[in-house]
C-alpha cells in the first residue's frame, strides 16, 4: 500500500469512528422520538428544531454531573469498566465494509476501516470482550446489586454468543471466508440473478437477530438492567459521563449489530440492479467506467446506511412493543431452543450445499 493510500485509509478509519459516535448520539434521540410516537406522545421537542439538540443537552448534563466513587470501590477498575465497554464497542465497527472502492486516479480508497481476512471473527472477539466492560464495572462498584447485574449480563451474553456463532457458521459454510468484504461481494455477482443471504438463511437470520437483541442487552432481553430487582443493574453506582459511556456503548453495539446483520444477510453495500445501473451510466450517459463505479459505490454506501438505520429502527420498535423475558425463560430460550435450532440450521445448510441447492 502506498503512503497516500495509507493516509486516505487513516482518514476512513477516523470517519468510521466519527460516524459510529454520531449515530450512537442520535440513536438516543431517535429512541426517545420513536418511543414517543409508538406511545402516542410527542417526545423531546424543546432543544432546537424538533428537539434535534437534545443529545447535546444530554451530554452537557452528563458531563456536569457529580463524579461519584462509591466507598470501597476499586477506583482503577471502576474507571476502566466503562472505558473498556466503549472501546470494544467502537473497535468492532472498524472492520465493517461500509462501501466498495472509490477510485481517484492511482489511489483506491476502500470505504472500510481495515480489511482483515478474519473480519467476522474479529467482530465476535470484540463483542465478547465487551462483556468484560460490564463485568469489571459491576465488580469494581463494590455493590452486590451491581455484581448480580453484571453476572446476569455476562451469563446472558455468553449463552447467546453460542447460538449466534452457530447461526453464523451456516453463513460461513456458504461463503467459505470470514472476511466481511468477501461475504458482501459474494452476495451480488454481475450478470446473474443473485440473492442476498437472507433468502438462503431465513432461519439463521431469525436466530442471529434474536441473539443480537440479547447481545446488545436490548428489550426483550434487557435483563442486566432492571429497576425492580437490581436497582439499575451493573451501572447502579455509576454517575456522570461514566454512566453515559455505558449507555453510549449500548447504542454503538446496536449500530454495529445492525451493520453486521446488513452485511451478513442483507447484501451489505450491494443494491438490486447495481451492475445494470453502472452499465447504463457508461453506455447511455457516456460516463467513464471509473466514475460510474464511484457513483455505484456511493449509492451502495447510502444503501447500506439505509439498511443499518432500518435495523436500528427495528431494534427500537421491538423495544417499545414487547415486554421482557423472565431470566429463566431467557436462559431456556437460549440453551434449549436457539442452540438446537442453530445446529439444525447448520445441518440443513450442509445438506443443501451437498445437494447443490444453494452455494
Amino acid at each position, binding site marked *: 500500500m502506498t503512503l497516500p493510500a495509507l493516509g486516505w485509509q487513516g482518514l476512513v478509519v477516523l470517519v468510521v469512528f466519527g460516524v459510529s459516535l454520531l449515530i450512537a448520539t442520535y440513536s438516543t434521540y431517535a429512541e426517545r422520538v420513536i418511543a414517543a410516537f409508538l*406511545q*402516542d406522545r410527542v417526545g423531546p*421537542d424543546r432543544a432546537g428544531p424538533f428537539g434535534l439538540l437534545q443529545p447535546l443537552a444530554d451530554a452537557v448534563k452528563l458531563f456536569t454531573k457529580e463524579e461519584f466513587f462509591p466507598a470501597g470501590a476499586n477506583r482503577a477498575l471502576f474507571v476502566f469498566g466503562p472505558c473498556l465497554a466503549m472501546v470494544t464497542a467502537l473497535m468492532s465497527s472498524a472492520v465493517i465494509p461500509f462501501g466498495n472502492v472509490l477510485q481517484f486516479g492511482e489511489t483506491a480508497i476502500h470505504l472500510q476501516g481495515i480489511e482483515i481476512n478474519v473480519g467476522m471473527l474479529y467482530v465476535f472477539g470484540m463483542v465478547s470482550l465487551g462483556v468484560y466492560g460490564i463485568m469489571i464495572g459491576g465488580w469494581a462498584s463494590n455493590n452486590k446489586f451491581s455484581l448480580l447485574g453484571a453476572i446476569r449480563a455476562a451469563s446472558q451474553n455468553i449463552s447467546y454468543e453460542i447460538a449466534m456463532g452457530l447461526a453464523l457458521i451456516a453463513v460461513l459454510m456458504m461463503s467459505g471466508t470470514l472476511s466481511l468484504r468477501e461475504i458482501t461481494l459474494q452476495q451480488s455477482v454481475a450478470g446473474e440473478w443473485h440473492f442476498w443471504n437472507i433468502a438462503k438463511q431465513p432461519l439463521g437470520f*431469525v436466530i442471529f437477530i434474536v441473539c443480537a437483541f440479547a447481545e446488545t442487552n436490548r428489550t426483550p432481553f434487557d435483563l442486566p438492567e432492571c429497576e425492580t430487582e437490581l436497582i439499575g443493574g451493573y451501572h447502579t453506582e455509576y454517575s456522570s459521563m461514566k454512566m453515559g459511556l455505558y449507555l453510549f456503548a449500548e447504542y454503538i453495539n446496536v449500530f454495529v449489530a445492525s451493520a453486521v446483520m446488513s452485511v451478513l444477510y442483507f447484501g451489505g453495500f450491494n443494491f438490486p440492479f447495481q451492475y445494470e445501473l453502472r452499465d447504463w451510466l457508461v453506455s447511455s450517459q457516456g460516463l467513464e467506467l471509473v466514475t460510474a463505479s464511484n457513483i455505484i459505490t456511493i449509492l451502495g454506501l447510502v444503501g447500506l446506511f439505509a439498511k443499518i438505520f432500518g435495523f436500528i429502527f427495528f431494534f427500537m420498535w*421491538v423495544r417499545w*412493543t414487547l415486554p421482557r423475558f423472565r431470566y429463566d425463560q431467557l436462559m431456556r430460550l437460549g440453551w434449549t431452543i436457539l442452540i438446537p435450532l442453530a445446529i439444525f440450521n447448520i445441518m440443513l445448510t450442509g445438506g443443501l450445499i451437498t445437494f447443490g441447492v444453494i452455494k
Partner: protein
Amino acid sequence: MESLSKRAKVLEKKPMTLAERAYLPAIFQGLTITMRHFFRAATKKQVTVRYPDETRPFSPVFRGLHVLKRDEQGRERCTACGLCAVACPAEAITMVAGERKKGEENLYREEKYAVSYEINMLRCIFCGLCEEACPKAAVYLQADKMAPPRFERDEFIYGKDRLVEPVTPDNRSKRGIQLTPEQAEKLRTQLQTA
C-alpha cells in the same frame, strides 16, 4: 355452586399451539399494533397539549381565584356585611368592617367597608357560595385564573392587596361588571387627581 349472574365463563387451559409457543406470530401482531400507533402519531393531530406554549381553554363555568370587584366609578363594592363569610362552608373568609371617613367617597361605595378582607386559599374549596351570597355583587370567582402554588403557608392567605380588582381600568377580569371606555377614562382621571 349455582352461578348467581350466570355470566361466569368457564375457561379451559389448553396447551399452547406451536404457533403460540414460537412467540413470533404474537410478536408480529404486537409490532403491527405499535406501528399503527406510530403512524397515527406522525400523521393525525396529537392529543398532547404542549403546555407552556398552548393552554387548554378553561370551562366558562370554572370557579377559580376570587376577585373583589369595583363599581363603575372604581369604588370598592364590598360593604363587609359578612354574608360571604357566613355562607362559606370551609370558613375561609374573615373580614374586619370599618366606617368610611369623609373624603373617601371615591374609594368605597357605601358608608361601611372592609378594612381587611382575607381568604385562605388552603381552606377554600372554590364552591362559589360566597359569590351567590354577596348582595353587592362584590366577590366573584374568576373563570380564567387559578390560585397558584406557593412555597409558604401564609402566602396562601390572600388579603385585599391581592383580591381587590386592580384599579387600572384596562386590566379587568372577564366576569363581573365591565367598564365602558368612557367610564374607564373617567376613572383614570379620577385616580390621577386623587
